[in-house]
């Protein structure tokens, strides 16, 4: 069984991004970039399924500029069999990304498509569900556990207040949540070896997909800062303040 995993190149979660001086976009020039953490979890899950003998091949796909090859190298170092870049001039919006991923899925014919729950730059959580719709297949979003057989996947989903289990016939799209697994550590020799592996590149422009942006970004701004607070010196002082400042403490 083949698994396709979608991986996005994003700003390192430890970096505090700021708006550009003109406020027209996010300033990410020269900033450290990494594989989206949720996508690393998706890759890890696919590799474990291959190691368990359930899957036979894992293909990683990134959409983006040529620099997205870096995150594909990372997935090769983790152990994916093949890596594929759909090269674009700029990072496309969610719907366009889903349409481009669909082209790859239709070509590769995987039985399972693993997508991150959300990209930690746009925090959208849209692409997996959009892709499932375009493919007309079932979706198991926010998965904390999955059980795959040759015909179906049972997905445990994280929802408010608890969890839900759904059964999806294959092919299906699953989006991965934090608790699914802990990704393996990539060893330096593997990273060196991954540098030599080929990455297939498809030009988005050749795929006959409408990827024009649908939303116009008018402004990027930092949120209003909270007024500075105070340190209280004792629990007693805290209680007095709370009784003054909020109705919820009596």
């Amino acid at each position, binding site marked *: 069984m083949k698994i396709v995993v979608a991986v996005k190149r994003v*700003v390192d*979660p430890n970096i*505090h*991004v*700021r*708006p550009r001086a003109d406020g027209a976009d*996010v300033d990410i020039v020269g900033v450290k970039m990494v594989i989206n953490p*949720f996508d690393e979890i998706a890759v890890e899950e696919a590799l474990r399924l291959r190691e368990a003998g359930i899957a036979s091949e894992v293909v990683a796909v990134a959409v983006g500029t040529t620099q997205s090859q870096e995150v594909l190298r990372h997935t090769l170092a983790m152990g994916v069999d093949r890596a594929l870049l759909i090269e674009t001039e700029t990072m496309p919006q*969610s*719907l366009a990304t889903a349409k481009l991923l669909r082209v790859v899925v239709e070509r590769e014919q995987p039985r399972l498509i693993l997508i991150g729950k959300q990209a*930690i*730059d*746009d*925090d*959208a*959580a*849209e*692409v997996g*569900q*959009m892709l499932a*719709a375009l493919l007309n*297949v*079932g*979706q198991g*979003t*926010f998965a904390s556990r999955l059980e795959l057989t040759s015909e179906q996947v049972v997905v445990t989903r*994280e*929802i*408010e*207040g*608890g*969890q*839900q*289990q*759904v*059964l*999806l016939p294959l092919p*299906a799209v699953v989006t991965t949540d*934090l*608790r699914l697994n802990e990704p393996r550590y990539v060893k330096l020799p593997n990273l060196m070896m991954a540098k030599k592996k080929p990455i297939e590149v498809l030009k988005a422009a050749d795929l006959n997909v409408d990827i024009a942006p*649908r*939303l116009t*970004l*008018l402004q*990027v*701004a930092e*949120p209003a800062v909270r007024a500075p*607070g*105070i*340190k*209280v010196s*004792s*629990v007693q002082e*805290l209680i007095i*303040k*709370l009784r003054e*400042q*909020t109705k*919820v*403490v009596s």
Partner: protein
Amino acid sequence: MTILIIAEHDHHQLKAATRSVITAALVFKEDVHLLVAGQGVEAIAKSAAAVQGVARVLVVDDPAYAHHLPENLAPLVVAIAVDYSAVLAAASSFGKDLLPRVAALLDVAMVSEVTRIVDPNTFVRPLYAGNLNATLQSAERIKLLTVRVSSFEAAIDGGNAAIETLPATADAGLSNWISTEIQPLDRPELATARVVVSGGRALGSAEQFQQVLAPLAARLNAALGATRAAVDAGYAPNDWQVGQTGSVVAPELYIAVGISGAVQHIAGMKESKVIVAINHDPDAPIFQWADYGLVADLFDAVKELEQGLQ
């Protein structure tokens, strides 16, 4: 034109989240219709019709919608949405599951986690764990939005909307529900609680998490929340996680106990009205966000606080 809201319910009651979406929708200054889909949802439809601001309730009652499966709901919403200028849902696990699927079927872009509706075409949403706000304009023929519940007040009762029954679409046959396990709580639900008491890694174990925080939460009628570190360590269930990749809350009072204040956590609670932080490290970043910071050992301080509030 009219606004369509996808109501969220658990077959017992209309979720408070939907009430916030109704408030958000009023900004469009158009009629608001509420779609209630499910199995045996007559009572839900009635309570939806009683919410202020709702002009009409559309009811679709069919076993295909009994478990809110997006594969079945999306074609239904698509069929109805053609007559509307916008479709809104809460940015909950339900709304986030469903609306992107609808968007792709309609071939329109959507805007997720909207925190402000500037005008019918312009929306504000957070990026990068809330470090930035983006203002986006959409020229799509139908605007599809999920709305951040904590950014809008809940609409109250006082309406009297007409109820109309619509036909169901077929079961898509793409998914099967197996089970739903909701932990019964004797506390308010996290997303809409007026007080939230959250614990971090410092609580040390699941037992201590309960022993230390539950009495305070009970005293304040608060929901319990947690950091990712606390959840990953097994001190608290997954759905208690507050933050960029968990729940976003904005209660009247948020008490952060033994939490360092990583941006990913701050993203989920910084809109709270009053923030209290208890941490023994005076330099912990959480203090930059706290209205009231107490530098103390949490194990002593929380107990004293709970007893002092008696």
